[in-house]
């Protein structure tokens, strides 16, 4: 059971139109052999602020659509969530995680609303210091399951508010700072009420290909990281012993 109002004001800001980035499976997880549309939301997501539903509170599960303002932020959010980091912003790229995944560039054609959790915009919806600290934890914790209760609380808070036309409002989504790329943001749109027509696909790269691997390396480098190749066997025996060695 969740508790209390997480927001001091039920309000939203508007996402800027333009390019965003998201990571998603290449193939549809359910419909065998079918390519997944880069604009499809994920009903199975358990990522940050996912709404898994709570019958006791009357909150139904929603599908999640995550995008980020940089390719690196998208990669960290969906693929390298707990990266192995070394001093000098070195990050080990576990290449097997790229298998079956795609990085897509998508364009937002018309502004969509979101609850801002990045600073200073968070001040629009949170004034209380204790609530602010709680949100700071929510947007930073690497344990995403611990954030789901907060999302449900806000969904309940929205649904108890009457919007235009006299109908209850529906939480549209959140925006929050990327943990690893502090100058970038991640946006989550819930489906419903996400409008797929507000988005268009610009391009996609299959991360399992050489082009995809290069795209990952360049994205990380652009964000100020020093990507480290995961050790590869049989590569001049730099990392593995010759046959018979003990």
């Amino acid at each position: 059971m969740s508790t209390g109002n997480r927001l001091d004001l039920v309000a939203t800001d508007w996402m800027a139109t333009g390019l965003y980035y998201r990571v998603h499976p290449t193939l549809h997880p359910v419909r065998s052999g079918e390519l997944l549309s880069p604009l499809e939301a994920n009903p199975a997501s358990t990522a940050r602020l996912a709404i898994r539903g709570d019958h006791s509170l009357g909150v139904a599960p929603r599908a999640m659509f995550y995008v980020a303002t940089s390719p690196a932020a998208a990669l960290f959010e969906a693929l390298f969530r707990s990266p192995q980091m070394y001093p000098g912003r070195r990050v080990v790229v576990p290449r097997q995680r790229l298998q079956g995944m795609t990085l897509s560039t998508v364009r937002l054609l018309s502004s969509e609303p979101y609850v801002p959790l990045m600073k200073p915009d968070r001040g629009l919806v949170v004034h209380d210091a204790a609530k602010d600290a709680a949100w700071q934890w929510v947007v930073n914790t690497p344990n995403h399951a611990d954030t789901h209760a907060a999302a449900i609380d806000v969904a309940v808070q929205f649904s108890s508010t009457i919007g235009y036309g006299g109908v209850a409002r529906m939480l549209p989504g959140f925006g929050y700072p990327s943990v690893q790329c502090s100058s970038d943001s991640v946006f989550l749109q819930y489906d419903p009420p996400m409008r797929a027509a507000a988005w268009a696909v610009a391009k996609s790269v299959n991360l399992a290909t050489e082009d995809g691997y290069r795209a990952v390396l360049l994205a990380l480098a652009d964000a100020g990281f020093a990507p480290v190749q995961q050790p590869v066997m049989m590569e001049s025996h730099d990392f593995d012993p010759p046959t018979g060695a003990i």
Partner: protein
Amino acid sequence: MAPMPSLASLEYNPDHGGLSYRGVSADEVERSTSPAAIRLFVPDVPGMDAGAISAPGIHRLQERFQHLCQDLQAQASVDWSVDAATTQYLLWNGDSPRRLTRVRRAESLRDLEVFRNFLAHGAEADELLIAVTNAGSHELFADLVRALAATLFAPGWDSAVVAQPAVVQISPEESARARSLALRDELLTRNWPTSTQVARLLGSQAANAAQYAAKKRTERKLFGVWSLKDNTYVHPDFQFDIQHQLHPAMPRLLAALAAVPGMSDADDQGGWRRAFWLYGANPLLSERALGTGESDLARSAADVFRTDPEVVIALADKEAARNPNVDW
């Protein structure tokens, strides 16, 4: 945060038999290299892409290196020596070298910060930064400089460099691979015990220590990584207690890691994927993430394992059971 400067670097590593030019960010400067290597840096064109170095950067490196040779001859009293686990950073400012800091790897983070702040705010266009890795003595450093000079100004170097385009681009794949090798070498400087040493530490009387250790590894009681330079397995220190005995939770940890995609014994014969996983800082192991304290500082599995092996094993289990369909 102020943007870190782009630097042109020259690295000479006798183990690998040559020198390389590349562009580096200031963040990369403290990247350790193999023992007995020296690296030189001069500020380069700001905003260069990762791995890129400008032709003027190359020529400035060569020019400044000649000055360094002259200075070395003139100032034999400068203490170039460092001990085996230390990287020494020096600034050559046109008059004489002065020491910026010496960094004992992974221990002097404050010193590294001082150095990085210097790079961010203090580097001037004509300054040459010299990183000395495991030079060990003035004589060895002088030998390295002579060997570097022989390579740098060998017949054909001029045409080889001039023939390059204005910007020499190292591919992102090459850069990532170079960092991987460097990280391997960095971890190897921790002087992890060899099979012979492990057998002795564990009190084995076996005639063949290598076979004794190999059997322990096969039984998943002992974790080893292949050291190319030593031509033997060495054994990361996190698995030993202060009495040098193997941690009793090692078999469960190794079994858990073997279930992580790409980290099975067959996929990771040299052990380095697992070593990178064990020694990298992971936010899921911070005190706050574990509910054991207030610190958000990411910690490595190797650091946490001795005191809380169950947490590390659980993390490996979680990694093995990871469902990519729920993370996006």
